[in-house]
């Protein structure tokens, strides 16, 4: 059965791994250049004192390839739709299930092998792609400090979980809906919904956020966010962490007005001790050290969802779909 | 080797047609003792009939003592069909001539006589229990 499943899968596999090979070559050629650029601009900017412009220069390099990272988001969905949905639905549509399920393999063995083989392949594709992009983008991510936030789902190991779930959901949609195109659409919709739901409702709570109040210290990359009516808050800083909220309070714990910086001691220098010395920073955040824990949790969630989908497929198959 | 034909419109059972064709072949000398009959597989590959039909025909022929199966080799003719006794033939010929004479005297033409002959032959060979 494994050989036959491989035979049926070979065209799709060739396309995917072929594309991966091309991407690997492109990234392989441009990666060292990016590292070199980093080393010559940002890495030494502290000594030259021109970090702001060095960073800007660096970040504008290879914009096209940076956008490739966004493909990593779409990849699991693509895999799920094009590999998962037709797996069973196409057989049901063309009637070939009446050919293959009357050979000498049981339906359960058939679905187990197909789920296993193509499922592992989809995890491998997503994993390899994510690995390549993570390696290539590491200078960028370092500068942006956003790996825990905006590019969390494009790096590391979570794309493998997404791919596994998208695939399993695709297969399940095909089994229940029995037609390829509606199954693709349903799987896509379901996948997007779950991804959004997990990102906004589950991920922030995977561990209890840390509440920390400390003396405000302005570091490189931090700035004030002034508003006319609202309180003063801080932007930037805390690279690599996931900040939920970052507020300024005075020593008594009251919010500081947005126009604080235009008064008193701050008129002379915004960063002088007299200006900001009494201010405190109230931070609600997930520390950078928790990054891999969060990656692992989220991947585990999606793998579990994939297993559930697979189990439902398995159970449904035993009910004799004709 | 004999080649069987099938007349689907004749109303005669398939296995009977096979038996009759073997009888005719024997009478015409197309089949002689020692000749092999086609295997069931060969017959059905050409006629697309049930193999059991062929086997039934061959069993009937075996019962009549005309053929004998040799396991692993095939079915072979062992005896030729005894021709009808010449006096019997002559007797029936005379009866038929008398009948023809009466029929023609009654005004029946060749076509009418032909029609009567065919109807009679068909019912006589095809009729089941009545």
């Amino acid at each position, binding site marked *: *059965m494994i*050989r*036959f499943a491989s*035979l*049926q899968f070979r065209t799709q596999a060739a396309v995917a791994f072929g594309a991966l090979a091309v991407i690997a070559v492109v990234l392989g050629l441009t990666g060292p250049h990016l590292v070199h650029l980093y080393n010559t601009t940002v890495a030494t900017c502290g000594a030259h004192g021109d970090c702001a412009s060095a960073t800007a220069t660096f970040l504008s390099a290879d914009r096209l390839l940076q956008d490739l990272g966004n493909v990593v988001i779409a990849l699991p969905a693509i895999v799920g739709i094009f590999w998962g949905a037709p797996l069973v639905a196409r057989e049901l549509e*063309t*009637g*070939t*299930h*009446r*050919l*293959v*399920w*009357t*050979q*000498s*393999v*049981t*339906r359960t*063995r058939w679905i187990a092998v197909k789920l296993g083989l193509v499922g592992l392949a989809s995890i491998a594709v997503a994993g390899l792609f994510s690995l390549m992009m993570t390696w290539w983008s590491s200078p960028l991510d370092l500068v942006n400090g956003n790996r825990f936030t905006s590019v969390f789902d494009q790096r590391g190991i979570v794309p493998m979980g997404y791919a596994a779930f998208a695939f399993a959901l695709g297969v399940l949609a095909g089994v229940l809906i029995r037609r390829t195109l509606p199954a693709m659409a349903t799987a896509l919709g379901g996948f997007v919904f779950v991804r959004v739901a997990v990102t906004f409702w589950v991920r922030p709570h995977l561990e209890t956020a840390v509440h920390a109040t400390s003396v405000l210290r302005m570091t490189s990359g931090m700035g004030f966010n002034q508003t006319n009516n609202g309180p003063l808050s801080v932007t930037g800083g805390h690279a690599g962490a996931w900040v939920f909220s970052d507020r300024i309070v005075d020593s008594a714990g009251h919010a500081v007005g947005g126009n604080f910086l235009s008064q008193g001691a701050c008129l002379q220098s915004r960063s002088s001790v007299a200006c900001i010395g009494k201010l405190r920073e109230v931070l609600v955040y997930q520390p950078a050290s928790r990054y891999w824990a969060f990656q692992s949790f989220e991947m585990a969630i999606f793998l579990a969802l994939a297993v559930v989908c697979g189990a439902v497929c398995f159970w449904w198959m035993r*009910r*004799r*779909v*004709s | 080797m004999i080649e069987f034909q*099938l007349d*689907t419109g004749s*109303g005669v059972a*398939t296995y009977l047609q096979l038996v009759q064709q073997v009888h005719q072949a024997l009478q015409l000398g197309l089949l002689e003792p020692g000749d092999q009959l086609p*295997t*069931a*597989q060969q017959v*059905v*590959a*050409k*006629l*697309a*009939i*049930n*193999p*059991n*039909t*062929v086997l039934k025909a061959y069993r009937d022929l075996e019962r009549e003592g005309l053929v004998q199966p040799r396991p692993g080799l095939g079915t072979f003719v062992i005896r030729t069909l005894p021709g009808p006794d010449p006096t019997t033939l002559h007797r029936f010929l005379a009866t038929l001539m008398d009948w023809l004479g009466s029929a023609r005297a009654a005004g029946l033409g060749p076509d009418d006589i032909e029609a009567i002959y065919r109807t009679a032959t068909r019912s006589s060979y*095809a*009729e*089941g*229990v*009545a």
Partner: protein
Amino acid sequence: MSGALETNGLGKQYGRRWALHDCTLSIPAGKVVGLVGPNGAGKTTLLHLAVGLMAPTSGTITVLGAGPGEGPAQLARVGFVAQNTPTYAGLSIAKHLRMGAWLNPGWDGDLAERRIEQLGLDPRQKTGSLSGGQRAQVALTLAIAKRPEFLLLDEPVAALDPLARREFLQSLMEVVAEHGVTVVLSSHLVADLERVCDFLVVLVTSHVQLAGDVGELLSSHHRLSGPRRDPSSLPASQQVIEESHTDKQSTLLVRSDGPIIDPSWTVKPVTLDDLVLAYMGQARDTERVPHQGLSVIR
């Protein structure tokens, strides 16, 4: 000895409709069985139940003494060709044969290759580009090369031209002669079945109307014609299946175990065609007027 296919009160329901209802059959081994009936009568449903593609709603079914589709050993004993002979259009004939070899422990590769060669087909050709007749022959090859004891075919010749149909039946009969498989062949065309089948099952509106050995059926049914008569005046041992009357004459198709000795009847044999049509007509009439009292023959 249990038969090749045994069912007892078998039924399959979809929503509110019974595709097959109260089906009790015993099909002996070693026969070529014709499963006849109009479209929608339940033939495909019965076959799908027999190969394990479907589970029954009620009743039981056993194939070669075991449950359909239960495990690889049972699957290996039964060969199936579905309606419209589905194949993987993008795979070549050779790849289909490899599939057969990989998925069937009892696969006879030599037999398969020989047949493809005899049929004059190029193994490298994709099955999607074959004609209907050629695809049917490939599907038949796949089904027999796994060396089953029991072969079920769902309307395999329905969409074929007369020549392809004849060649398919020749192939099939050759297989039966060579390997002795039990065959169930479903069709809504009776003509082909007459030369090929020695057991008949008539299925109309999801019920079994008639089932039996062809020889016995033909010898126990007669066409009676004679002066006009009320059919209920016939003895109880003679069952009227079909009747038609003019003002002077009655023609009946009856089932009778004993000989017909009433001299007022002219008795003629029936063909399989007539028999099937008569039972199909009876079923349709029973449907329309349920209390007509004609019994269902099993």
